């Protein structure tokens, strides 16, 4: 890979503020031709904001972007594309109801040209997908594709536009380890074809594996810039976290009785999302059970089942050795199941309700919040204030509408409202998604404390590192099927990846363990 064939892109002192938060603080760096540059940083370090500025989706408050020596006009994606910059967003920008080809050719031709040239476009897509090992059928409907395939469509979209600089925002977050390897092979081909790549990640091993050079962001500031072959993971980690890497040492668990047990439970598929396929699982007191898997493989079905949103169509669910009569969310709550929902905005809270109302959302009908059929606002407010104080929810007060809170503070309120009931069973579905590092550490500590107090915790996460760091026992879910339980440290990420790709489940395949 050539490294000194000149600079293709330069960021000069980019600053961007959102209200009081400075997302990017005078960030400058450059990208060489044929280079893979890793942009490393924790969640919330400002990586995505920076790339959105580069790609013209946000306007910087100050600073300039130069591509091939030309300054890009700010806030203009078209100009960035025309200059040869392509971006693969973390959240794909594809239209599900349209075909792969339609998605790729959108906006390529001037709008008022009379005809779409379909056959030429098709052969060009096929040629590109062959050259860059991006197998996908041009006529497939995007809504029917897997996440990995959708990402290929996004990359093809950029390549189709003859980009010279390809930006990938957290591209491996949604991939299995094997799919990630395929992606890296594609990136190698891209570099051989004289593209330059900016690879955004917070995963150190990927950065070490794929990049030529690393730029590290922390709290919006550029804190380090090194050649990859002159550094190691520990050095990068301390740069990224600022020296104080949070302790990941977890004291071993002392598991107790089984509190919740699923016996060969099957649930129906919902749309494209698979239901559970004869899943057996036991959650034991004093133990964190981690559920690893690529998003959309039955996690939602399992969470819905345990949270009471949906009953089993086959099989049995036992809570504290009793089969509940009618399985419903109320029944789940009565049985001491606390839920931290996956989507705190849509499911966990009601945006325009205040903190008090949100704090009693699950228990408004029970003592002390309801007295003789009337809501007791005094008790509710006291409870909300309690949660705010104990769980350090930063807010003006219990009368604040919850939509005004940051994600981390919203999550703290949800955490507080469920943990204050001393729940027996905690269903934590993506509990730290989108939170900053401080909030992540806080949530993890609270889950560990609940475990040590004797609760059974089910941790569902798409972040394999998180699952491996916290869980005493790990299951992998793929296509609605559940792997056997693996003890902490029993499996390497690669071995788990095989299961995540849905391969370990066949009887005739030798088990990795």
């Amino acid at each position, binding site marked *: 890979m050539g490294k000194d064939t000149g600079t293709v892109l330069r960021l000069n002192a980019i600053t961007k503020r959102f209200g009081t938060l400075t997302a990017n603080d005078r960030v400058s760096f450059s990208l060489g031709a044929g280079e893979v540059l890793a942009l490393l940083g924790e969640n919330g370090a400002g990586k995505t904001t920076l790339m959105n500025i580069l790609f*013209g*989706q*946000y306007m910087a408050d100050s600073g300039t972007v130069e591509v091939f020596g030309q300054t890009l006009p700010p806030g*203009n*994606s*078209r*100009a*960035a*594309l*025309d200059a040869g910059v392509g*971006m693969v*967003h973390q959240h794909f*920008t*594809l*239209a*599900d*109801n*349209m075909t792969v080809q*339609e*998605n790729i*050719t*959108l*906006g*390529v*031709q*001037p*709008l*008022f*040209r*009379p*005809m*779409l040239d379909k056959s030429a476009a098709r052969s060009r897509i096929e040629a590109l997908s062959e050259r860059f090992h991006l197998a996908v059928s041009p006529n497939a409907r995007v809504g029917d594709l897997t996440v990995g395939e959708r990402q290929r469509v996004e990359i093809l979209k950029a390549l189709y536009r003859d980009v010279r600089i390809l930006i990938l925002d957290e591209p491996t977050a949604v991939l299995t380890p094997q799919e990630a390897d395929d992606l890296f092979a594609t990136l190698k081909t891209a570099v051989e074809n004289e593209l330059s790549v900016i690879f955004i990640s917070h995963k150190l091993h990927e950065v070490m594996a794929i990049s030529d050079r690393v730029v590290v962001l922390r709290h919006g500031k550029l804190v380090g810039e090194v050649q990859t072959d002159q550094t190691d993971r520990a050095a990068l980690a301390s740069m990224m976290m600022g020296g104080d890497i949070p302790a990941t040492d977890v004291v071993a668990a002392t598991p107790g009785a089984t509190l919740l047990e699923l016996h060969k439970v099957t649930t129906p598929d919902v749309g494209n999302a698979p239901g559970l396929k004869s899943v057996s699982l036991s959650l034991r007191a004093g133990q964190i059970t981690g559920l690893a898997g690529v998003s959309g493989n039955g996690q939602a079905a399992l969470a819905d089942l345990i949270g009471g949103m949906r009953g089993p169509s086959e099989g049995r669910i036992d809570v504290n050795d009793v089969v509940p009569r009618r399985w419903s969310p109320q029944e789940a709550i009565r049985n001491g199941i606390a839920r931290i929902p996956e989507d705190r905005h849509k499911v966990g809270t009601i945006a325009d309700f205040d903190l008090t109302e949100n704090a009693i959302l699950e228990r408004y009908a029970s003592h002390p919040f309801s007295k003789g059929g009337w809501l007791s606002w005094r008790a509710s407010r006291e409870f909300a204030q309690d949660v705010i104080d104990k769980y350090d929810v930063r807010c003006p007060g219990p009368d604040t509408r919850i939509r005004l809170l940051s994600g981390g503070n919203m999550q703290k309120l949800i955490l507080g409202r469920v943990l204050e009931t001393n729940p027996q069973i905690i269903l934590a579905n993506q509990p730290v998604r989108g939170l900053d590092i401080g909030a992540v550490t806080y949530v993890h500590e609270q889950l560990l404390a609940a475990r040590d107090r004797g609760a059974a915790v089910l941790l569902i996460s798409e972040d394999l590192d998180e699952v491996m760091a916290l869980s005493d026992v790990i299951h992998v879910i793929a296509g609605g099927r559940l792997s056997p339980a693996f003890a902490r440290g029993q499996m390497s990420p690669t071995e788990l990846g095989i299961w995540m790709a849905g391969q370990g489940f066949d009887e005739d395949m030798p088990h990795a363990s």
Partner: protein
Amino acid sequence: MEIFEILMSVSFWAAAIRIASPLILGTLGELICERAGVLNLGIEGIMVSGAFAGWMAVYSGTGLWTGVGVAMCVGMSFGLLHSVLTVPFGLSQHVVGLGVTLLATSGTYYAYRLALPEVTSPPKIEAFQPFEIPFLSDIPGIGPALFSQTPLTYLAFGLVLVVSLVLYRTPLGLAVRAAGENPAAVAAQGLSVTAIRMGAVTVGSGFMAMGGAFLTMSAFDSFFFEMVNGRGWICIALVVFGSWRPGKALLGAVLFAAFDALQIRMQQTSLGADVPYQIFLMMPYILSILALVVMSRRAEVPAALMVPFNKGER
């Protein structure tokens, strides 16, 4: 059987095609708006304004085609108003749509009173006359039914083809459909979602106004306030019925029109003597509701219909 005789008659099918024409134009207009992601409930009022504007223009001495153009311009101005409020400002599409309908309807009433203060019955104009297409109109059966219509009917059918081609075969159509499916995908290509949606709503509203103008300039030769009579709302249902596809929407419009033509004729049969005529009037609507229930199960709603888009919002 009398119904069978009705269904076999050329005049019945000629009437069905004639009744379908304004519905086709209105449905096409609504379909364009919704494909771009905007529900345009202003359609009822825009059709009223188009009906009045086209007729008034011709009454004031312009040619018929100029009248159609005037109607389109009036419709497009209401469309522009609708799109400014719903697209860049992101206001509720329901509220704005109903507001536009009220504004356009009452604005038309006002304009009518202003233009013709002393009149008790509205004056007539020289409307479009049926034009028999050489050779085609000589085909027995379908010839007189399909090819002895007024020019606006031919235009309506032609526009179905044009809109289909534009939506599915041109870069512009691709962008319009993508704006209704995932505006973020459009913005990521550096195209303006705002411009695409505003353009679609404005053009679509022009089509709606043309549908209204058909009533005063082809179907009748004068203007009455009640003449649009809910056709706009029918068009909204027809878009769903047609699963947001121009060809299917055309079929839906013809089907509805056939029911309508049928019920008028059934009132005059022996059955009509025993059954209250209101039952017949209800018939096309009830049948439409049933058809809608069956058809809309498989309908593919544009995923971003009624979802405002703000650039830079996460």
